[in-house]
């Protein structure tokens, strides 16, 4: 599903010394895996997420998503890839504020190939899948944090992607709601056979995943079950 080979990313800041955010990262993720990418801030995990999400291109190395070399695509090609295969969930939800929940969920379909007539039904089905079908008409400010994140997850699911990328999905939520959202992600992973990659700095979140990739200083330093990786990092 995901095949990252020697990914490097270097930012050149206005002629100053280039900053290397990723220094050669290689790993593979199979379809249906539930993976956490962990690391402190500055470890390169956000850069890695941007590359996995086809929002950016690697300076060197190759990133194959479903066999397609995303690094070689132009901006439009990456946009299509994002639209068809990737769903995003963000820490700050990133919903359009003056737009109803169901219209927020429809957003990826607007840029896809599905006939307009089917958008509403698909969006409502996605809201049902995350358990908030009854809130379809609400505006984001009328929803709780957990409900907003569920709308965001529904938006990530609506185009039926192969991969959902979640960037600190519980970062803005209280403990109980965080647990709900993680449970929802686990359920979707199990029931839809969806590949989910969660980026987090929180060991409690990572512990809920099947596999953890640990980043440090732009390198992948550990890869394994949560128990083994977290024990190693604590030591």
């Amino acid at each position, binding site marked *: 599903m995901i095949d990252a080979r020697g990914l490097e990313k270097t930012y050149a800041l206005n002629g100053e010394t280039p900053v290397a955010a990723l220094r050669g990262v290689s790993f593979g993720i199979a379809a249906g895996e539930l993976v956490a990418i962990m690391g402190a801030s500055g470890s390169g995990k956000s850069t890695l997420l941007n590359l996995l999400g086809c*929002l950016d291109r690697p300076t060197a190395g190759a990133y194959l998503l479903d066999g397609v070399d995303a690094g070689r695509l132009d901006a*439009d090609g990456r*946009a299509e890839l994002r*639209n068809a295969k990737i769903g995003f969930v963000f820490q700050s939800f990133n*919903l*359009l504020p003056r*737009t109803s929940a169901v219209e927020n969920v429809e957003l990826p379909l*607007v840029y896809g190939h599905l006939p307009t007539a089917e958008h509403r039904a698909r969006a409502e089905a996605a809201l049902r899948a995350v358990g908030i079908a009854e809130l379809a008409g609400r505006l984001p400010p009328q929803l709780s944090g957990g409900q907003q994140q569920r709308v965001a997850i529904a938006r990530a699911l609506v*185009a039926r992607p192969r991969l959902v990328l979640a960037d600190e999905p519980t970062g803005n939520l209280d403990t109980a709601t965080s647990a709900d959202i993680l449970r929802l992600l686990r359920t979707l992973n199990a029931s839809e056979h969806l590949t989910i990659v969660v980026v987090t700095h929180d060991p409690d979140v990572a512990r809920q995943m099947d596999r953890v990739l640990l980043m440090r200083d732009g390198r992948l330093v550990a890869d394994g079950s949560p128990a083994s990786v977290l024990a190693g990092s604590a030591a």
Partner: protein
Amino acid sequence: MTVRTALGALARNLTRSGLTALGVVIGVAALIAMVSVGQGADAAVRRQLASLGTNVIMVYPGTTTVGGVRSGAGTAATLSVADGIAIGKECPSVAAVTWLKRDVAQVTYGNQNWSTALQGSNASFPLVRDWPLARGRFLTDSEDVSAAKVAVVGQTLVDALFAPGEDPLGATIRVRNVPFRIIGIMVRKGRTSWGSDQDDVVMVPFNTAERRVLGSPILGTVNQMLVSAKSPGAIDDAIEEITLLLRARHRVPEGEEDGFTVRGMTEMFETSLMASGVMTNLLAAIASISLLVGGIGIMNILLVSVAERTREIGIRLAVGAKARHILLQFLVESMVLSLAGGLLGALLGVGAATLIGRLAGWPILVSPAAVALALGFAGVLGIVFGVYPARRAARLDPILALRHE
């Protein structure tokens, strides 16, 4: 799809959208109203010109000079009825000639009396002045020859002397105590551009005026001649023919002043036509500037909107929008704003023009061309001033846009 997105974005910010479009509304309204008013002023001048008669040329006698004091034009008795007859016979570019004798006269009917203009003319007067009769008939040449005591009256005189519902036709009025039978009533002609009431008049045959009412010392002298040329293009030829003929008839030696004045009506109005044309252009220019300012307003708001919605743009890019989707969305927003503003402005402009026309008493011409031009201008404005903000939005980096606070 993009159109719906754009409309949705505008609808969510209705107040701001409205205020943004207001600039274009005012610009388009001003443009249409100003051009219409300018053209209305032009039409008013032309209407006055037409009301004087078709292709009319005026011929005045010269001035008298008594002891070095020159009187005004028309005071000398240098034009005669014979001159008028000669012009009608010998000038090929002339269609008809009428000669006039004018004075003020007191008119009485029953217990009413009224001071009005007495005008003696031949039978061609209605033809030359393009002034038809409402009822009855005009004076004939045989009535002129026999100096018959018949009169044709204007509407103001009818209103002044007769009770409402009373039939003036066939009634006998007294002009300077001479009885006249009314045989015709002219249609209402209105005021001249200098404000005198053309309908306040009693018209009698030329010879009748001269011999029976005014008692002129020298017979056959006229105050003024009105000549109509065969076509608008023939006016200049007619003026030249009349001048040459009169100089020959009056035996004016080479190099000396004419002793009479020949003028086309159009000349008199050339300045006012030019002024109204200049005014139209000037007003249109000012209104165009206000439309331009409206367009800049749209660009300004769109730039603010792009900055404010950076995160939204980031979200759209993340879920798969391509740069051209974003570009199109903002372009459509800009065009919808300017076109909606343009349509509303067109309505307002037509309304304002009509109102101004009613207040000023001008025939307001709302030309479809002006409306189309203003709307087209608004559309172009929408594109031109939408491109820059839209390109800025489309070029945003999705990663930075998503992190934008």
